[in-house]
């Protein structure tokens, strides 16, 4: 079962977890990454750390990690400059990057590890709006892989460089987030999507954008969204779900909704969403 919500620390996470770590200070970040990777190693996962700087600096960042050289020698730990992990094709072919992670996970399993875990400092990949649009869509695709495969990741973003709005755009697509970076989260579940948190005036634009990242062409199908832990959605949010479903030619089915959600959708005469109320 994947965790979702806010994570105060990067410890205690499972083989499918996907955590957004927006940070202000480099020191806190390194501590978190060490904790995340050490946990992974203890679980028998192959771990990797990637950032946009060179290997010696990557090593220094992980100074707190036990038996760092031993782990490197065993092939349990890999240090990767970002360009090596993410080819310059990312912007053009995000699906290939997703496939690459799936391959790396399979390799880890073949090499006797119980899965793959990656910590990535990805600020350089998301500086511009254009980059963020592609990367956000990619984040969601790779999140879907993590549901099935024993692949977990910590995505670190420098809040000082990117600003709170850009961070929110990325954080809201992760099941787990270090801070209260976004009022809601929409991410991959075992069947379709999961939507948690609250959607109202404050996150309205963010929500409409997020739907563009996570709801692709539906081709007449129904896409389930688990809303058991959606604490609130307002009328504008419901209308945004309906608009996206109609634009993508399908129906969004809100599963485990509360009766008020069903009533509101009926009253608004929304034809491209359906609410299945949770059994009492």
């Amino acid at each position: 079962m994947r965790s979702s919500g806010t994570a105060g620390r990067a410890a205690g996470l499972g083989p499918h977890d996907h955590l957004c770590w927006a940070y202000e200070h480099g020191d806190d970040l390194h501590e978190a990454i060490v904790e995340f990777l050490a946990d992974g190693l203890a679980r028998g996962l192959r771990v990797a750390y990637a950032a946009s700087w060179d290997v010696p600096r990557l090593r220094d960042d992980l100074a707190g990690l036990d038996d760092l050289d031993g782990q490197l020698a065993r092939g349990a730990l890999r240090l990767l400059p970002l360009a090596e992990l993410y080819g310059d094709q990312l912007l053009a072919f995000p699906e290939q990057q997703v496939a690459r992670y799936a391959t790396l996970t399979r390799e880890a399993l073949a090499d006797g590890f119980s899965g793959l875990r990656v910590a990535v400092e990805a600020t350089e990949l998301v500086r511009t709006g254009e980059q963020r649009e592609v990367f956000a869509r990619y984040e969601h695709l790779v999140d879907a892989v993590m549901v099935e495969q024993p692949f977990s990741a910590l995505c670190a973003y420098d809040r000082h460089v990117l600003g709170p709005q850009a961070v929110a755009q990325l954080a809201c697509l992760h099941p787990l987030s270090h801070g209260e970076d976004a009022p809601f989260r929409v991410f991959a579940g075992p069947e379709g999507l999961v939507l948690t948190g609250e959607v109202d005036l404050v996150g309205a634009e963010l929500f409409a954008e997020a739907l563009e990242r996570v709801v692709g062409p539906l081709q007449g199908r129904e896409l389930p969204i688990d809303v058991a832990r959606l604490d609130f959605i307002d009328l504008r949010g419901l209308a945004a779900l309906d608009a996206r479903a109609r634009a993508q030619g399908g129906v969004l089915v809100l599963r485990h909704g509360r009766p008020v959600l069903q009533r509101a959708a009926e009253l608004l005469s929304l034809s491209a969403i359906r609410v299945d109320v949770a059994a009492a």
Partner: protein
Amino acid sequence: MRTGAASGHPGYFHETAFFSSDEELLAVLVPFLRGGQEAGEPTLVMVGDDQARLVRDALGDTSGMDFTSGGGHYTNPAQTIADFRRRFAALVRRGATQIRVVGEVPHPGTGQAWERWARYEAAVNHAYDAFPLWGLCPYDVRITPDHVLEDVRRTHPHVAGADGSHRPNARFEEPRAFLAGRSAPPPDPLERERPLLERRDVSPARARTAVASALRGALSRDALDGLVLATSEAVTNAILHGRGPVVLRAWGRRGRALVTVADGGPGPADPLAGLLPHAHEPDGRGAGMGLWIANQLCSEVRVETRGGCTVRLLVDETRDGSSPLLV
């Protein structure tokens, strides 16, 4: 094709009748109902049980007429309007060229507060005008208070007499003018106590948390969910369209809760706001429907536009023992 007194009339033919005896009531109802039956028009009769019995006995053959007890239909004005409009639309889709309805709107003579039903009588001149509807609202002058009769005269464009006459009503007032002139009704008994919460400059999220936690013990979960949604929409509207800090207050006791959302702005320009779904808001679907949705989820919603704008959301689960959410 329209028939009877409503011949040639395009939309809602809204007629009242005053009676002071069974004979006078029948003199108006029987020809009206027979006419509908003979023309093959859907004919709906929503009156109390005694009157229904009286009318059925007088008619004998009531084939084609739909007798339903009035009580369940008049919940709150916005819900009543929504229900009727759905029903009328369905009848028109099935080929009705005129629909006849006899309806008894609640008033103090029948044990109900009048103010919102006065507004209803004014609003339906617009709300039902899209339908080929002939509506007859009979009022018993023996039990109807004078101030109610006065409002009835001002909200019905036509009057039917026991002598078989159908006359235009010179006292009829344009609905928006009538509504704009209404005075503020008295405060709710809950307001005699200090509010459970009072917050200034509140965000929709803070408003929701405050209301949910203050009223958790007072309402059922579904009713509370509806009130929280209505509150959130009211606060959102106040932030987007209002002026100055938004002030939130809430009162509640077992089964009854009141939330008020106030801002310093002028409030909605249209006195019909909330009674009809607004399909033409610039924000698109969802936005602008807040007041109307609130009306469907709460027992009563009022918008006071004197001295700023105050939206009052009342949920009363004590009246019929069930949540207004469960239709």
